[in-house]
């Protein structure tokens, strides 16, 4: 195990340069370049805000950061899940030539997605601090509380990174064995989008117990809370949130490790 991570570390220059190249080639020839990864969730937020504030009378100052953090997270999750499906096919020509540890290929996917996520988070923090939501409704929290809670995002991001690496490893290995995985993942992602409080708060459905119960079963909610609590509510995420997110990451990481353990040696025969 240790030697495996040692091998991943020793070819770090390789996967880091692949990540760098992925980022560069994604925006090659576009005038705005890397700004697109900012503009995309921003534009989506504006559209949703216009729709929802007119149609449902939502308060923009609270709603905009809610949607923006939600979409930033969703962008990461989608990229990791669907992008992970093609990670081994993308690296096939390297796999056929060099005996590098297989885990570096999902890692490449995650790091690319994480880069966009971090840019989005920086913007979310800025929005939260400047035009941010009215946090005083949350037990009289102040901007100072909000600032103090921000460092909690660092361990949260590390958790998210592990979460993403596990997901993309699993989806990558699955789609090598079952070629339909990517299509199913895309559909599942679409369905999950509405079952995850991206565009709304869970509290919106207070009266509807079944729906509430269903939403609370969604493991993604804890990750959303991890990034939303400090920015939107000016508080540290609760221990329950950490425990849930930590458990989810642990289970997924174990599953990914196990799957990799089994598949690592045979993967090349199925490509």
């Amino acid at each position, binding site marked *: 195990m240790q030697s495996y991570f040692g091998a991943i570390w020793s070819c770090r220059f390789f996967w880091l340069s*692949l990540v760098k*190249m992925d980022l560069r*080639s994604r925006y090659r020839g576009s005038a705005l370049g890397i700004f697109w990864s900012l503009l995309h969730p921003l534009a989506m937020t504006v559209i949703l805000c216009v729709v929802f504030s007119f149609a449902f009378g939502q308060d923009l100052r609270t709603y905009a950061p809610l949607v923006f953090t939600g979409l930033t997270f969703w962008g990461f999750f989608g990229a990791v899940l669907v992008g992970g499906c093609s990670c081994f096919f993308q690296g096939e020509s390297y796999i*056929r030539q*060099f005996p590098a540890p297989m885990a570096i290929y999902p890692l490449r996917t995650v790091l690319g997605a994480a880069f966009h996520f971090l840019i989005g988070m920086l913007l979310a923090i800025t929005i939260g601090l400047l035009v941010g939501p009215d946090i005083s409704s949350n037990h009289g929290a102040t901007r100072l509380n909000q600032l103090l809670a921000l460092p909690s995002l660092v361990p949260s991001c590390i958790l998210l990174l592990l979460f993403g690496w596990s997901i993309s490893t699993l989806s990558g290995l699955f789609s090598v064995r*079952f*070629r*339909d995985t990517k299509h199913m993942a895309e559909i599942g992602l679409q369905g999950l989008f509405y079952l995850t409080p991206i565009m709304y708060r869970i509290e919106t459905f207070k009266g509807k117990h079944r729906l509430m119960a269903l939403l609370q079963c969604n493991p993604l909610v804890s990750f959303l809370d991890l990034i939303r609590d400090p920015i939107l509510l000016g508080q540290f995420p609760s221990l329950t949130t950490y425990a849930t997110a930590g458990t989810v990451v642990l289970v997924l990481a174990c599953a990914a490790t196990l799957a990799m353990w089994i598949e690592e040696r045979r993967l090349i025969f199925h490509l």
Partner: protein
Amino acid sequence: MARIELEHLNLTFRLRRERGIRLKDFILKRMFLPSRNPIMEVRALQDINLRIDQGDRIAFIGHNGAGKSTMLKLLAGIYQPSSGRRLVEGRVSSLFDLTLGFEPEASGWENIAYRSYLQGETPASVRAKKQAIAEFSELGDFLNMPVRYYSSGMIVRLAFSIATAIEPEILLVDEVLSVGDLAFQVKARQRMRDMMDKAHLMVVVSHDLESLPHVCNRAVWMDHGRIRMMGTCADVIAAYRLSVGPAAAAA
């Protein structure tokens, strides 16, 4: 010390007619219905016992599909043995599938860096070698262009220049000597000869029976995944020629 040891080594490919299983098939199989995408077993290498020591220059010969290239990939660590023991000590450099593994959108310079990193280089050591690699490839300003625009000959040139820029302890070669145009081939042969001299241990797969005795001291004759004969280069090649037919033996 470079060293290779294989003991009772087997490699079996379990392949399907269509790559990748359909989820449907997977479920149907569970329900004991006959699969339309059956597993076919190919015993690529069977009960291989081999020891290669420092200083050895070994050639693998045999007909197509005898398992020679599979053997090289196994030695390179790309294929894992199904059973048996494989021990490879020393820094391996492999010259096969040369044109694979280029990032088409990245420039020649960037690809030099990627492939060098995969061969275990660091940014500092790549910086030191970059210029030499570029000069040997003679690609000049083309190196600033994305590899997507390269001709196949140019890609082979670049690949060869990168792959041969390191000093390997174990060198694995799969018939790559026809590299680029005539002028480059002469250069490439010279570079290969230098590399072979420097390498502590070399394994070559080739059909060029004429030149093998000049390069190698031992030969292994592979047949249907098994070692049929092992010995000095001249003996094994003579036996192989006899088995192919009198015409080949006379040649």
